[in-house]
């Protein structure tokens, strides 16, 4: 470390506290019994306090200037010309991420105290959760690509551990493995991207790379296609971690993990890492607009694909998982059209309302005896009031109903895509908004408003969750309700823009944005009206079909609609058959390939070796016939040899 200032120590504390919490809980948590959460939660609360101080310093006090706080801890890999340090950076982007990560993280920790109260493995759970917080904070604070990659894999590992938390369930173990391996596919690209960066510029520090790589491109040191290649490789990492098409298959399965995990990792924080990565490397993408188009295309395609699947799922957590995919798609689309600030804005608001929705769904699941199938719920709104209200706020927020958080961020995304000339992104985005409102209120209707299908044995035991769980819900609901107002107003000039515009202004202009000013009475107002209207229509349709506060659920009409579009319905219900395709490609064909290669190994390669051996052996066996073991045979041989030699001598020499 260069200097030992307090802020640097606090940055280290952000990492050190959860790590210490992990270590202590892992070692002693088992003996602490039901109190296993104390260390972990205390660590995270402390982290939150420290983080808020640092956020204040960065965003409000501008204590570190526009560049942010950067410092080196120690030299990590000194391999000749390849020098990588463990160094950290804290700028506006990191600070915004810190807000989401530590806030949602803290609330999820507190929620988990209640949610996991009866699980004997709770000490493991809290240890893993702390470990995840460490990894995620490292990801946000890392100041070079390789350290970021470390964190990238470590969050993947925590995700693996937490998805597979209930390891006795085969499906959980399989889902954990799938998540890790699919993530690794993306990581492969990311790793190659890092190699490409080092090979071209010889450094991996963010600051140096972001200045030198564009310079190299300008000076002709590298070709344009190389730049695009680097960007696409980095994007591959983001696709894996943020579960974008075609690597989206792991996220729905990841719902096998405990619900707080789904809220924290698979909704609010880790899956956003891809968005963070693209935003972080925006100076590179600015030089490769073609790569940005790919980002936008993948993003918006994932958005509509996932939304279409979310329409028909019946597992409450899976609906939310596909919704997450869809919202992440929005963020990538936003990044792709060059609207970085709205993307991060949506990341923040989505972090709050999706975290809220997941925690709420956990509360619902808890109340109906761990049942996740929405077909076995219904009419819960009277029974679990707090959960219902908070989830309603979350649903309205995600549907984009003003003035809740989702409205502001989603609207900025759609508005910017339209204004930046990506009409197709805007068009699909509006459809997705419609679908979002629809499937969310389908979920609300089936869970809370429609007729009850709860198991009669469970029915009497439906109960509101303990305070450990409801207080985080309430806090998150408040955040989901007001985050948009606080950060997003005035339009295009709110806090979030004040914080992040300095970071992105240079690169946002690449795609032609930045010049136009916001006009509520002009084009922007029209766009806002359109998207709001669309969301309202989706909401209304869902309401008609699935009910709202007990009014008008119409099962017959639902059946009629599904019958009408039977092909689409089944395809959506089967997730467009991606899992089956993967199963065929990688499990079956891959398995056959592996088995074939093993056969090759044993029979061809080793067969050759053993063939040589048995050839030697059989020729030896043949020759062994000579070795009769009868001494007289040998003696005769000696005599014969003697005679031959003597005759030879006589014939050849004596004459």
């Amino acid at each position, binding site marked *: 470390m260069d200097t030992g200032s307090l802020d640097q120590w606090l940055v280290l504390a952000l990492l050190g506290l959860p790590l210490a919490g992990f270590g202590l809980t892992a070692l002693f948590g088992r003996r602490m019994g039901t109190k296993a959460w104390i260390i972990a939660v205390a660590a995270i609360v402390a982290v939150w306090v420290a983080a808020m101080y640092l956020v204040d310093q960065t965003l409000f006090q501008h204590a570190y200037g526009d560049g942010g706080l950067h410092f080196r801890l120690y030299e990590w890999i000194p391999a000749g010309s390849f020098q990588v340090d463990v160094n950290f950076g804290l700028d506006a982007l990191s600070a915004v991420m810190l807000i989401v990560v530590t806030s949602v993280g803290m609330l999820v920790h507190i929620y988990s105290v209640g949610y996991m109260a009866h699980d004997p493995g709770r000490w493991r759970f809290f240890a893993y959760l702390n470990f995840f917080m460490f990894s995620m904070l490292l990801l946000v604070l890392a100041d070079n690509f390789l350290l970021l990659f470390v964190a990238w894999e470590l969050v993947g590992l925590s995700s693996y551990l937490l998805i597979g938390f209930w390891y006795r369930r085969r499906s959980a173990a399989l889902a954990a493995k799938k998540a890790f391996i699919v993530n690794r596919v993306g990581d492969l690209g990311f790793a190659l991207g890092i190699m490409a960066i080092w090979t071209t510029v010889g450094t991996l520090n963010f600051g140096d790379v972001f200045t030198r790589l564009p310079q190299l491109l300008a000076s002709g040191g590298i070709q344009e296609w190389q730049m695009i290649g680097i960007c696409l490789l980095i994007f591959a990492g983001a696709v894996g971690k943020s579960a974008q098409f075609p690597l989206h298959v792991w996220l729905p399965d990841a719902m096998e993990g405990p619900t707080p995990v789904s809220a924290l990792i698979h909704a609010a924080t880790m899956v956003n890492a891809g968005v963070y990565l693209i935003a972080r490397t925006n100076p590179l993408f600015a030089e490769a607009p073609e790569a940005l188009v790919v980002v936008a295309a993948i993003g918006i395609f994932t958005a509509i694909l996932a939304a279409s699947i979310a329409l028909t799922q019946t597992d409450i957590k899976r609906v939310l998982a596909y919704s997450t995919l869809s919202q992440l798609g929005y963020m990538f689309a936003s990044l792709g059209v060059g609207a970085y600030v709205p993307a991060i804005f949506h990341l923040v608001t989505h972090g709050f309302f999706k975290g809220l929705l997941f925690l709420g769904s956990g509360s619902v699941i808890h109340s109906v005896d761990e049942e996740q199938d929405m077909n076995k719920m219904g009419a819960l709104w009277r029974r679990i009031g707090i959960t219902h209200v908070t989830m309603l706020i979350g649903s309205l927020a995600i549907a984009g109903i003003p003035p809740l958080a989702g409205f502001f961020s989603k609207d900025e995304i759609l508005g910017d895509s339209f204004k930046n000339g990506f009409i197709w992104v805007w068009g699909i985005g509006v459809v997705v908004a419609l679908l979002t409102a629809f499937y969310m209120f389908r979920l609300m209707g089936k869970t809370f408003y429609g007729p009850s299908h709860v198991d009669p044995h469970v029915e009497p035991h439906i109960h509101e969750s303990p305070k450990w769980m409801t207080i985080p819900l309430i806090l998150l609901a408040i955040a989901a309700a007001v985050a948009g107002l606080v950060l997003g107003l005035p339009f295009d000039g709110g806090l979030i823009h004040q914080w992040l515009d300095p970071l992105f202004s240079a690169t946002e202009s690449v795609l032609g944005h930045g010049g136009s000013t916001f006009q509520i009475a002009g084009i922007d107002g029209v766009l806002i009206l359109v998207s709001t209207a669309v969301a309202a229509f989706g909401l209304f349709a869902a309401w008609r079909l699935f009910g709202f506060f007990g009014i008008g659920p119409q099962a017959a009409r639902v059946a009629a609609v599904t019958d009408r579009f039977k092909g689409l319905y089944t395809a959506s219900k089967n997730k467009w058959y991606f899992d089956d395709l993967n199963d065929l490609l990688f499990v079956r064909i891959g398995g056959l390939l592996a088995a074939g290669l093993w056969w090759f190994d044993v029979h061809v390669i080793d067969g050759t070796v053993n063939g040589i051996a048995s050839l030697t052996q059989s020729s030896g066996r043949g020759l062994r016939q000579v*070795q*009769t*073991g*009868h*001494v*007289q045979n040998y*003696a*005769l041989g000696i*005599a014969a040899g003697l005679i031959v030699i003597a005759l030879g001598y006589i014939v050849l020499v004596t004459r």
Partner: protein
Amino acid sequence: MTGNLDAYLVLSGLLFSIGTFGFLARRNAIAMLMSVELMVNAVNLAIVAFGTFVPELKGQGTVIALFVMAVAAAEATVGLAIVIAIYRNRRTPLVDEYSSMRD
């Protein structure tokens, strides 16, 4: 003829050949040992003959022959003891049934 080295050497050679035949052809271990004794005697005869006809040897032939006899005696002792020991294990003096060295 008695003054001719060749005669003794040829005689020795014939005796040696007879011994060789016996060693190669007989199945009985003791018969083989007897054949070996014949061969040893043949060699001894050659040695003594050389000792007699080559002046430089000055009686060395006799000395060598005595040594050979001593060694032959030792060989016969040990050889016969081995034959008896094997016979006790295998109940047969026939060597072509002794083939445990093979496997």
